[in-house]
């Protein structure tokens, strides 16, 4: 399989804390790739560096056959990487539909002049954006809430909406930061089905998750971070039996908690 994303020696330091140290990993096209590790292991930091929210101290990313710009979120999105957040970050006062439409911004072109005179291109683009947003809401199963202000949605639906908004940017790689956090078993099951559907439609998924059952059942390959270092990378069944991984999760050894 083709490599979609290659991280090479990513390092990030916050003051005295080495949040990421020489992290390298490769994600192949079409797989669901899990990133796990104890709290504070650097998973979210890795996400933030990848998506341009932070600039790495060292290393870089190759994505889809080219170098990925660092520290420029909008250019990363333009290249085809979208993300969701650990703590849901929707545009609270906007409706579900408008949230998804906003996500389409980077794929549209209308300028001030076109908007002022409402030329055909602008009107056409606007209609497509709306239609596409409805489609995505249907895709994640919340079309009936299209006109609901997003902060009024239930927790699980807000998570789904965030995924729909990320998909609206037309990503090649979708990075999900703990999408199952706070969900009950039924909701998690539906989420799993959704992620499988997304993968089935040709979008590669990078998943940070604490729910071990979800990770083991969903991911093709898993990397484990501990204290900012990658300590394992393999198929779930192998990682599960890895000594270093068990130690990191259960404590003991040199990293006694």
């Amino acid at each position, binding site marked *: 399989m083709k490599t979609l994303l290659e991280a090479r020696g990513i390092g990030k330091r916050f003051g005295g804390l080495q949040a990421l140290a020489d992290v390298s990993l490769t994600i192949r096209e079409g797989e669901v790739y899990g990133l796990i590790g104890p709290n504070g292991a650097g998973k979210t930091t890795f996400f933030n560096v990848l998506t341009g929210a932070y600039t790495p101290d060292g290393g870089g990313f190759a994505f889809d056959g080219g170098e990925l710009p660092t520290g420029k979120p*909008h250019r990363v999105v333009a290249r085809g990487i979208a993300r969701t957040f650990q703590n849901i970050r929707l*545009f609270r006062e*906007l409706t579900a539909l408008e949230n998804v439409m*906003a996500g389409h911004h980077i794929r549209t072109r209308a300028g*001030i002049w076109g*908007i*002022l005179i409402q030329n055909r291109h602008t009107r056409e683009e*606007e209609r497509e954006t709306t239609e596409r947003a409805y489609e995505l809401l249907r895709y994640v199963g919340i079309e009936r809430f299209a006109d*609901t202000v997003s902060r009024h949605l239930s927790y699980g639906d807000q998570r789904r909406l965030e995924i729909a*908004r990320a998909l609206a940017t037309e990503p090649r790689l979708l990075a999900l930061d703990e999408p199952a956090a706070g969900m009950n078993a039924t909701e998690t099951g539906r989420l799993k089905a959704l992620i499988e559907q997304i993968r089935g439609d040709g979008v590669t998924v990078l998943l940070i998750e604490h729910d071990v059952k979800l990770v083991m059942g969903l991911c093709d390959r898993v990397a484990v971070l501990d204290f900012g270092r990658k300590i394992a990378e393999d198929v779930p069944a192998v990682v599960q039996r890895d000594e270093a991984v068990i130690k990191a999760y259960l404590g003991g050894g040199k990293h006694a908690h």
Partner: protein
Amino acid sequence: MNELAAAVPWLGKRNPAAARWLILILAIAAPLIAWQFGRSWVRILDFALLYMMLALGLNLVVGFAGLLDLGYIAFYAVGAYTFAFLASPHFEVHLPFWLVLPLGAAFAALAGIMLGFPVLRLRGDYLAIVTLGFGEIVRIFMLNLNYPVNITNGPQGIGMIDPIVLFGWDLSQNLQITERFAINSLFLYYYAFLACVAGSILFIRRLQISRVGRAWAAMREDELAAKAIGINTRNLKLLAFALGATFGGVAGCLFGAFQGFVSPESFSLMESIAVLTMVVFGGMGNIAGAVIGAFVLALLPEILRHIAVPLQQAVFGHVLLDPEVLRMLLLSLAMILMMLLRPTGLIPARARYAHPENLHRSSQP
């Protein structure tokens, strides 16, 4: 227009089409009604329209993009002074209105970008303080740039500014229809300004339901998430500052030409705050709110002035409270009441960011 119509009490919900006509008729008939109370009232209406333009422009920056701007009147000043420089005896330059207006708008937009760049990373209180400083800097420049080279004529201001002349038609002259019937200049200005306000509303409405309006709303709601969906927040902030300033600049040009005189004291901090009050009073982030907020708050003090003095004389025999004092008192009272009773503004309608024609009807609220 639809938002305005929906804001009409009682009728707005029941019969929006009728409400639209009502607004249109009122807008056209307003100066005729005002004329019955004296010509000064038509003049007050003209100023109310200028304030509407200012409120619409500031609403774009504060309400849409969520960037608190306490120095907005500086762009009004830039527009007014541009007009004064290029169409008055001050420099002996008399460029035509159609040339000066875009120049005034462009200079104001440039000033907006100049303000925008240094404040890109600032938010909330810090942004407010810097914009407040910017407004004062512009005013103090106007006040002091009369020495060693006289540019702005300092506190005396610039007078004898050319009136608006459209295709050889001078708006400052009464329009003689027949021997005995003439349309007063104040009416001509009223309808010219009304056209400008209508154009502004149309443009801003189109912006609101476009990709740009949604991106601003996204940025206002959550800047980090906006970046994460690929919105270039730097460019969009600059665009908001520049476009907002453009409306201020255009209003400033009109003000200069209408008044025939500009001086720094028209552009004090209190004016910035007055315009912001209009936006907040009407309901931040929606067009109808800005329009109605500006209308009410531009008229209220004048009405007070005309009622308070005779009323006090009738009741107490002499004037106890100066109308100016009373104005501040009642305005503050109104603001406090607003904060308590309607914290989201007079018209708290939720702004829409999608073209209604494209929406599916089936989806339930």
